[in-house]
C-alpha cells in the first residue's frame, strides 16, 4: 500500500484526555462506569500513580473530589449524563467552599439514541450543571480532546472552578443494540 493510501487513524481521544490529566498531575480518578469511558478507566487502572475509585452513585465522586483537594490532590470524576442529576445537591459543596472540580461526562440521549429513557436527563444535563454554577464545555471533535482537557484542568485546579466537559454522543458513537454477525 502506498503511503498516500494509508487511512488517517481517528484520534485516540481517551488517550489525549489521559495525557492531559497526567500533565495536570491528577492523582485520583473516580467513576461510575460507562462504555464510552472504558478506555480512560483502563488507562487509569494501569497507572500506579493514579488512585482509582469505583462509586455506587455519582454524587460520591463530587464529595471524594473535595476530600482529595483538602488533602492536596487533584481528582477527576467520570460519569454518564444519566448520573448528572444525582449530583445536584452535592455540587453545593463545591460552591460553598469554592472547591476545584473536574468531571468528564459521556452524553446519552442526544444523538441517534435508541433508549427513550435516556433522553430526559440527557437533555437536562447542561442546565443541571449550570443551575449549580458549574461551567460546561462541550467536546464535539476527538482532535480537540487533549487541548480541551488541559484547558478545563487549568481552569478547575488553578482558578478553583467547577468544570464539566460533556463528550458528545455523536463523537463517541451511539450504543449498538443489535449484534453484528
Amino acid at each position, binding site marked *: 500500500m502506498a503511503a498516500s493510501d494509508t487511512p488517517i487513524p481517528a484520534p485516540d481521544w481517551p488517550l489525549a484526555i489521559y495525557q492531559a490529566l497526567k500533565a495536570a498531575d491528577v*492523582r*485520583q480518578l473516580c467513576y461510575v462506569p460507562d462504555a464510552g469511558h472504558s478506555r480512560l478507566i483502563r488507562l487509569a487502572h494501569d497507572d500506579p500513580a493514579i*488512585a482509582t*475509585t*469505583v*462509586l*455506587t*452513585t455519582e*454524587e*460520591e*465522586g*463530587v*464529595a*471524594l*473530589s*473535595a*476530600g*482529595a*483537594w*483538602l*488533602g*492536596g*490532590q487533584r*481528582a477527576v470524576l467520570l460519569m454518564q449524563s444519566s448520573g448528572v442529576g444525582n449530583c445536584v*445537591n*452535592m455540587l*453545593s*459543596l463545591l460552591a*460553598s*467552599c*469554592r*472547591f476545584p472540580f473536574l468531571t468528564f461526562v459521556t452524553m446519552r440521549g442526544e444523538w441517534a439514541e435508541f433508549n427513550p429513557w435516556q433522553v430526559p436527563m440527557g437533555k437536562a444535563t447542561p442546565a443541571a450543571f449550570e443551575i449549580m454554577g458549574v461551567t460546561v464545555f462541550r467536546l464535539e471533535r476527538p482532535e480537540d480532546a487533549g487541548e480541551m482537557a488541559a484547558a478545563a484542568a487549568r481552569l478547575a485546579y*488553578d482558578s*478553583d472552578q467547577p468544570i464539566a466537559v460533556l463528550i458528545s454522543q455523536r463523537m463517541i458513537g451511539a450504543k449498538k443494540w443489535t449484534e453484528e454477525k
Partner: protein
Amino acid sequence: MMRATLDRRTAVKALLQNRGDLLVVSGLGSSSYDVFAAGDHDANFYLWGAMGGAAMIGLGLALAQPSRPVAVITGDGEQLMGLGSLATIAAKKPRNLAIVVLDNAHFGETGMQMSHSGLGARLELIATGAGFPSASTIEDGAALDAFRPKLHDLSGPHFARVAIATDHVDRALPARDGVFLKNRFRGHLGFPVS
C-alpha cells in the same frame, strides 16, 4: 435494644483526646457541634451541608494523605443518606480511614423524628455487609477507650457505631464559612492559599 446512655459530647471528646496527627471530617448538624465542642482544630473540617457526603470526603482525604489517620465523625441520618459510600470505602480499603457514626436513632436536627436505625436498621451490620473488615458497636466508656487506638493504627478501614443518648445538649457552633474552613485545613497540611 437497650436505651443508649452515652452522652454525645463526652463520647466525641473521649475519641478525640490525644488526637495527635488525626485529620477529622464532621458530618452536618450535631456531629459538627460535637467535634467543635471537643476543641477547635485546624485539622477539623466541619460540614454544614453536603448531607450524605462526609464519608466520601473522608475517603478522598485519606487517599491523598495515606500517612495521616483520618476520622469521619457523623450522625446516623447523615450516614444513612450515603449508605452506598460504605461499599465504596470497603472496596477501596484505605488503611488510614475510620468512619464513626454517632447513632441516636433519630433525626436530631429536625424535630427528633425516628430514623431508620431506630426502626431496625443495624448500621454496623450494613458496614460489615459492605465489606468493612472492622466494625464495632460502642455503648459505654470502656468500649470507647478500647476503640480509640484504632483511630490511629493505620489498619483500617474501621467502622464504629456509637450508641448515644437522645438527651438535649447545648449548641456549639463552629465557623460556617466553607472557604475559610477549606483554606485553614489545607494550611494545616502545608498547602498555600491559591
